[in-house]
């Protein structure tokens, strides 16, 4: 049984104007792509990818709404609750791997990017963000391989969305595996161009979560549970889903447009 732990925050690292990394000790293992349920006391408990594996773990949190906003005001020494790791992990396959990350999606992929590099794979990362200041983990990805940058506003690198940049990269070089995490439409675009070229894709999907352990049904995507069967699905699985890219569930369980 994955255990619940209360841990003091050792360090907060500002990654971008809207994103903060929190480091804490945790000897609960974890593999690239897995996530934790992170309890921000008095605010909420949320799923967060493990952005740093190892003894001093890390999560990297985008300031989306009330809870993550409040979390940004925490200090070193403040305590949070963590349970997990939950979910499946990226399969670390391929000798030439393309990673396509959008926004805070990089937090889910960065550990896999580093692990693949570690085991000798060439990893090319296409990182996208709205603007240059919001680019996440460019340096870490760069140390692990090659990085290409896309910004919506053209403030750095390719002006446009990450999938368009990524499509250029696959036309230039043959990849045998694509990893992706980011907004659902972005991932859908990645899946689409990869399909044309027959490259396997692993995409990390986000859904609203309550339990994180496969009982509450909050995170369901068709008949799969993102917390238990995912968060990582293959392009073949995603193609079966009626809901991927089209619908998500709100907190009440209603299907709403994605």
């Amino acid at each position, binding site marked *: 049984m994955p255990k619940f732990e209360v841990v003091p925050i050792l360090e907060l690292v500002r990654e971008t104007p809207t994103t903060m990394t929190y480091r804490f000790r945790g000897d609960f293992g974890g593999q690239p792509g897995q996530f934790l349920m992170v309890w921000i006391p008095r605010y*909420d408990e949320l799923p967060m990818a493990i952005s740093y594996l190892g003894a001093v773990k890390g999560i990297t949190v985008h300031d989306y709404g009330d809870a993550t906003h409040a979390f940004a005001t925490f200090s070193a020494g403040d305590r949070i609750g963590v349970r997990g790791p939950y979910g499946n992990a990226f399969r670390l396959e391929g000798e030439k791997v393309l990673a396509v990350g959008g926004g805070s999606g990089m937090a889910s992929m960065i550990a896999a990017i580093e692990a693949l590099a570690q085991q000798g794979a060439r990893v090319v990362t296409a990182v996208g963000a709205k603007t240059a200041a919001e680019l996440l983990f460019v340096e870490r990805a760069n140390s692990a391989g090659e990085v290409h940058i896309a910004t919506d506003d053209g403030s750095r690198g390719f002006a446009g969305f990450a999938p368009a940049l990524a499509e250029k990269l696959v036309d230039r070089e043959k990849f045998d595996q694509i990893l992706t995490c980011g907004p659902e439409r972005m991932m859908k675009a990645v899946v689409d161009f990869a399909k044309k070229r027959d490259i396997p894709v692993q995409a990390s999907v986000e859904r609203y979560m309550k339990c994180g*352990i496969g009982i509450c049904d909050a995170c369901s995507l068709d008949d*799969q549970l993102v917390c238990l069967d995912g968060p990582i699905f293959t392009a073949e699985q995603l193609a079966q889903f009626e809901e991927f890219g089209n619908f998500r569930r709100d907190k009440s369980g209603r299907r709403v447009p994605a």
Partner: protein
Amino acid sequence: MVDLRTEIAGVRLRNPTMLASGFLDETGGSMARVYEAGAGAVVTKSIGPKPREGYPNPTIVELDAGLLNAVGLPNPGIVEYEHEVKRAKKAGAVIIGSVFGKDADEYAGVATKMASYGVQAIELNLSCPHAKGLGTEIAEDEAAVRDFTRAVKDAVSLPVFPKLSPNVQDIASFAVAAEEGGADGIVAINTVKAMAIVPELKMPFLANKFGGLSGPAIRPIGVRAVYDICEKVHIPVVGVGGIGSGRDALEYIMAGACAVQVGTAIIPKGLAVFDEIVKEMGSLLEEAGFASVSEAIGVAHA
């Protein structure tokens, strides 16, 4: 081969296991998957008249002996839920629709809509705040249990199964009240009032502070409830609370239940739990010389 089919008030089940309300039953896709995994029936999430977000997280905590939750009845509302029931029906699932409301009218209204979606029976989740009784639940007021049951019975032509709370002095008298209200069967038990505190944070674990306990911790409480109820009523009883194996299920069956529901055990065992329970129940019944599960119902009262 032991005959494992069972029946509750005319609802026939291929085996005595059902998915308990609140587990993987907010969406049709999940209910279909659970049925395909081997459950004899699925009980829907408790559905109310309108969409409800439920309580903020944390809503669910794994404790050493059970699970503590305060999800706060999140549900998409009875209108939207039609889609989910239809999806589960496509997979051939036997579906029992669980409903709640703030008063008898709301119960009857939601049950009527639920019935129209083609479910086989209605389960009444009475463990929700009582509009009239300050701070108490409908499940804690015998008269309300009787009256709400009657209101729903009058509104639908399906079997109606009120689900009782163990947080009362004498659960059997509530079963009698339900029977008086026309219930076709009883489901027992819902979760047990409980709380967990995290010393390191000096605060309750759940955002709602209080919650309900389920899982192995409550099995002996549920078995006793079912045993007590079966001494007092003549309608069938469905046992729920901490069931995760064939032995566990047989405790309830021998206490008098004709079927069982399974929830929390899905965490350690996954959906294979339904098949496992059915297989173990079969071999234990065979060893004990029973030809069918129905022969074993209530034998512990001897």
